[in-house]
């Protein structure tokens, strides 16, 4: 949009702002101070719209999250509305009843926001770090794979691991999906699904 910049630059450069623009030139110059005074007490309200993908199923509908508040000014922003994304080629602004109620999903009190761990025999979950959670998952995967990996079926090499499953999310990009597939399949895991059938 260089055209636009030069247009505005030209106007500013020639001092159109000082001349009062169209209002002043046509004899309406007195209205501008009155208007400025009228809007002075009002505060600019900021709203953000953010594209996202509905997390429910593998249709992966586009959604727009409407939030109030300004992240850059240390204010807490809060999602206040969720709508289908009219530009998204999959859903063209529409949402199913589950997707349309995403706002309750976002605000749910029981929403999982961080990893939690319930030790064997314990009655309560306690919050743990991501490092702990990922190490624990990796350890358990390794233990299970070492115990149950099937390399041969008779003479036939099969290299399969059927005792652990993996579930992908709906909002993955092609690249993430490729990486997920490579990671999971290279371990020999056969039980591998996406959100489609949850």
């Amino acid at each position: 949009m260089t055209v636009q910049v030069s247009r505005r630059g030209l106007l500013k450069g020639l001092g159109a702002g000082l001349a009062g623009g169209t209002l002043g030139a046509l004899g309406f110059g007195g209205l501008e101070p009155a208007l400025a005074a009228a809007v002075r007490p009002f505060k600019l309200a900021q709203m953000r719209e953010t594209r996202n993908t509905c997390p429910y199923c593998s249709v992966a509908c586009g959604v727009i999250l409407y939030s109030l508040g300004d992240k850059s000014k240390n204010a807490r922003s809060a999602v206040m509305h969720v709508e289908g994304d009219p530009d998204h080629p999959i859903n063209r602004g529409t949402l199913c009843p589950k997707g349309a109620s995403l706002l309750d999903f976002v605000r749910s009190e029981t929403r999982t926001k961080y990893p939690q761990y319930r030790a064997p025999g314990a009655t309560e979950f306690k919050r743990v770090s991501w490092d702990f959670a990922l190490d624990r998952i990796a350890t358990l995967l390794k233990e299970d794979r070492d115990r149950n990996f099937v390399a041969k079926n008779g003479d036939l090499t099969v290299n399969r691991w059927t005792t652990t499953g993996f579930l992908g999310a709906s909002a993955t990009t092609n690249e993430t999906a490729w990486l997920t597939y490579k990671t999971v399949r290279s371990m020999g895991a056969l039980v591998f699904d996406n959100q489609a059938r949850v």
Partner: protein
Amino acid sequence: MARFFRRGADPAPETDPPSPAAKPRELKPDPDRIGISGSVPFVRLPVPDRLFAERARRLRDLARQGHALGAYLGFLAAVAEAQDAVQAAAAAIPVAVPADLDVRTGNGMPPLSSALVRDDPAFAALLDDLLARLDLSAAPEAARAARSSLRKATPEDRQDLALQVFEGAFPVDRMAECLFVAAGLQVGLARQAAALDARSLQPVADGVCPCCGGAPVASLIVGWTPADKARYLSCSLCGTLWNHVRIRCTACGEGGGISYYGLDEVSKDVQVETCTQCHGYLKHLHQHRDPALDPVADDVASYGLDLKIAEEGFRNVGLNPLLLH
């Protein structure tokens, strides 16, 4: 669906069961049934018959509401009424097809150009007619003086000024006359744009009208059936509406730093879309909530929002030739 609600015996006799050889009916998505379509129309061409008349009505309504700019809105309503009268009088005159149309579209340029001003003798007549029809009885002396000086100017001078307005290079010492020339250009270009084939139009660049290359005046979230809540930009010159993806800056194409600001006490349907990448803003009108919103009229009426957002350090990337500031 109608059959679902009908009571009594089923009037439709059972047809023979399909023979096993028959292929199952092909299943195709039919989104039209729920009022959406697989893709939204790229452009909506102006309808000169309605464009100016509806704008005039909107301006009159706004002026009546005790607006701080009421006098100016009333003046613009008189301009829009004259524009409507001019286009109605010219409706019988065939629209000249630009000679370079194929060359321009073949090279990715918008089909309409300043050829309207340079080559079309009808445009000079159109502008003269507009100046004659303007009812400036309630306008300030400066506006009347600008009109008469424009009428006294030579045709070459008027044509020269029209070319400058088309290019967006408004001469600062003739700002008042520019408004009348721009109003004439709007009529001429809207007539030309309406005669184009919408299917042949291609995107030219971000924030550039695919019909005439003009800058947008405002962005509209529309509520039409096949494009509900899609965003269209409204051309400042020819009045064409063209689709632009939402939450993406109309000037620099970035989507990361987009925010919407508005004066909630005044109206929640009029906002500005700001971009922290290029520090530009454009008016953003929620026409799906208030169908009466007109891009040009409500851009002028929401000038207070311009004043407030300019204090935050954003500059206007749109252009409204009826209110340059």
